[in-house]
């Protein structure tokens, strides 16, 4: 389909235009599709590698089959694991969908099923929450709606009518936006006293990695922790600008890769460096993507039409509404990481508003928590052996996250009530250390956690920092 004449006004944004028209133009402006095609292939590859790695490391069994209980997200406790070996099904589906995404075969349905499967798995247990899993979930959601299969794909080979060479700007910019906010909010989160003035937690983490070749010896010096802290903060805040600015894109990406290689080597962050290094290639110039895609097309004997073809969104006269919705979504994504400001206290201590906020590798926090169950009739009190119910990973994460402590208390209440304890009271003695400080009492020991309910409200039973 050729570019419609009545859309021509979308190409330039005239200063005299109303702001909503400018936004409308920005959202629907037609730009070359090639970066989106590269992104589709790379994203599929990354999810394929990530899923294979997960399977090969035996984490399906360890994280989803073996545990006795799972910590659910507030309001999402319907997300339960499939029984036993059936839990391998969503992972197998993810593998197949990833291959389909790479090839652009049955793309829309594959992207949809991948999003459902991946998000379902991530919602099962909050223990394994990672920012990059959240990122993959969001991106896979948008991959359902973008026309990433309409060039260099099996779908477009089977149905050549769908081929386009231009797409609406939002289909690419929404992905760029999400990459930018990961870094930007990660950088903003680093602007705190511990990170910048005390070089914490890097003063703990770096000396522990002084066996790293070549630069490892420098980790023994406190100044290195300061340098890493400040450079890390500045990198996170400014890398998005440098990626967007076309004269610095390539160099910014090289620096980004070096940053991720170093952090990937230093810290246990799995495929995060790979995900971010691959996805940020979308910032490269259209011509670079075009050359790559055309070369790949030649290798695959892919024949694209010579004519320029534009993306025809199917929403008809709702274009403007869609542009507004995108705007609302963007504002929501900018506000969500800031929601912690609505809670009293130190976010690192209370963790209220901590997740889904791109707070990446920010603190060294650990805890030891002992739960006590008391029979409300007999007064008989006993201590819980947490490892009887939780794996090491769950126990570690639960010990310093209040919502998980509360969930475990509720589980213990039900468990011991079923065992014959009368209306069990559940208290805990939790000691938590944050960024190298001596551990302190974390939860009010007098509170019967079994009677407390989780909510969006501040948790009054968390003791002040």
């Amino acid at each position, binding site marked *: 389909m050729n570019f419609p004449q009545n859309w021509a006004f979308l190409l330039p944004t005239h200063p005299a235009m109303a702001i909503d028209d400018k936004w409308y133009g920005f959202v629907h402006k037609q730009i070359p599709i090639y970066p989106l095609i590269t992104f589709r292939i790379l994203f599929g590859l990354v999810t394929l590698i990530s899923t294979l790695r997960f399977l090969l*490391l035996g984490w399906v069994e360890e994280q989803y089959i073996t545990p006795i209980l799972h910590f659910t997200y507030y309001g999402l406790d319907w997300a339960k694991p499939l029984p036993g070996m059936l839990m391998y099904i969503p992972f197998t589906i993810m593998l197949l969908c990833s291959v389909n995404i790479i090839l652009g075969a049955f793309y829309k349905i594959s992207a949809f099923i991948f999003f459902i499967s991946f998000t379902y798995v991530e919602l099962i247990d909050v223990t394994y929450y990672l920012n*990059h899993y959240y990122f993959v979930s969001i991106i896979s959601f948008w991959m359902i709606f973008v026309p990433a299969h309409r060039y260099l794909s099996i779908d477009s080979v089977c149905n050549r009518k769908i081929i386009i060479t231009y797409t609406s700007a939002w289909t690419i910019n929404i992905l760029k936006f999400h990459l930018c906010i990961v870094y930007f909010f990660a950088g903003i989160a680093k602007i705190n006293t511990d990170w910048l003035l005390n070089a914490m937690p890097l003063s703990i983490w770096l000396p522990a990695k002084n066996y790293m070749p070549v630069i490892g010896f420098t980790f023994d*010096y406190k100044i290195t922790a300061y340098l890493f802290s400040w450079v890390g903060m500045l990198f996170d805040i400014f890398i998005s600008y440098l990626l967007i600015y076309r004269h610095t894109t390539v160099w910014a990406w090289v620096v980004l890769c070096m940053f991720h290689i170093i952090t990937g080597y230093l810290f246990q962050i799995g495929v995060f460096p790979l995900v971010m290094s691959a996805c940020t290639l979308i910032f490269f110039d259209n011509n670079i993507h075009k050359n790559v895609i055309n070369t790949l097309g030649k290798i695959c004997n892919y024949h694209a039409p010579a004519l320029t073809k534009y993306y025809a969104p199917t929403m008809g006269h709702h274009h403007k509404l869609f542009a507004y919705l995108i705007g609302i979504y963007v504002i929501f994504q900018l506000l969500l990481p800031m929601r912690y400001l609505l809670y009293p206290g130190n976010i690192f201590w209370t963790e209220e508003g901590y997740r889904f906020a791109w707070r990446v590798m920010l603190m060294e926090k650990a805890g030891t928590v002992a739960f006590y169950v008391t029979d409300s009739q007999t007064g008989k009190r006993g201590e819980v*052996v947490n490892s009887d119910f939780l794996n090491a990973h769950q126990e570690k994460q639960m010990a310093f996250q209040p919502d998980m402590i509360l969930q475990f208390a509720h589980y213990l209440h039900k468990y011991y009530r079923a065992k014959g304890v009368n209306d069990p009271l559940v208290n805990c003695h939790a000691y938590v250390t944050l960024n190298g400080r001596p551990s302190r009492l974390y939860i009010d020991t007098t509170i019967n956690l079994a009677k407390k309910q989780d909510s969006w409200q501040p948790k009054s039973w968390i003791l002040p920092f």
Partner: protein
Amino acid sequence: MNLYHKVFGVYFILIFWACAPDRVQNMNTNVTFSRAKMLKNYADTLIIPALDDLQNKTDKLYECTLIFTNNLNTANHISLKNALAEALTAYQSTSWLNFGPGETNIGLFSENIGWYPVNTTLIGDNINKSDTAFTKNFKRDSRGIYALEYLIYQYDGIDFAVAFINPKNLQYINAVAYHMKALVQKQCREWKTYQATFIANDGTDASSSISYLFNENIADYEKLKNYKIQYPMGKRAGQTKAEPQDVEAYYSGLSVKLLKAHYIHVENRWYGNTSTHTNGTGFDDYLANVEGGTSLINDTKAQFEVVKNILQKIPDDKKLSDLIVEKNPDLEILYTESAKLTRYIKSELSSKLGISITYSSGDGD
């Protein structure tokens, strides 16, 4: 280029600010601690000698078992009991070695050697069936040093001729002692091969030797706290009464001595010491070289002393099971204070040293 200038301008201003005089004094702290040296100390001073000692004791125990089962008399029975007591004491310093060669296809080292309470019904069934295929099943509560303790002490005070009228009884005793001796020999032999790998693996991430040392020490301490004190005292959630018969070494009554010996080993491990080698490089030395480590050293030492002082008040010559029945007040204090120690040697230690608290290399960001 303006953007570059602005970015680097801000960057240098911030760096100079970070290097303000009040902070410079801490910025050239050079951490000179050698984890390899610490690992060498653990391997050469704590682990290998402890395993050698256990091997000698279990070899002797097996010899005494053969002598007794061939010649049932009081003198041989006393020799066997003494050999068992020595082996039990030696085992306390090795019960944490469940990594490296300690992970076997029939379970962990301590599961095969030191499982208690033993299942006396299962042992009886095994004896009747002459089932001594210990390497082919996971019924670890029917073998090991505590099974042998039960077998040796169960007929205490009864005429040997009557007690051991069933020859299968004696065959089972020999089989248990032999299996244990073989397991210890294997562990000892394999540790000597593994020793160099252990020392060389001086990182701090999951599956590093430091991570193993830390995790196994804390796992061992929690076993001490939960199974030697908490459970027999009836302090576990859901328990309606004490279970004094489930103390360690219930039949021999050596529980208090073993509890004290075990506790001393936990403390020594933190210091990197043994009873004869008191200047070893341990977690305390490691902590002394990290930021904020001194306060944790002091807190941990103080709590070790508190627990040790209470332990000293518990009489060696009394059975732990009897003290539990008597509701000895010092045991209550011991339980409370030993629980307090956990946070110092577990979460605070791992956090200060940046040690991975799990073996699984799960991702994190």
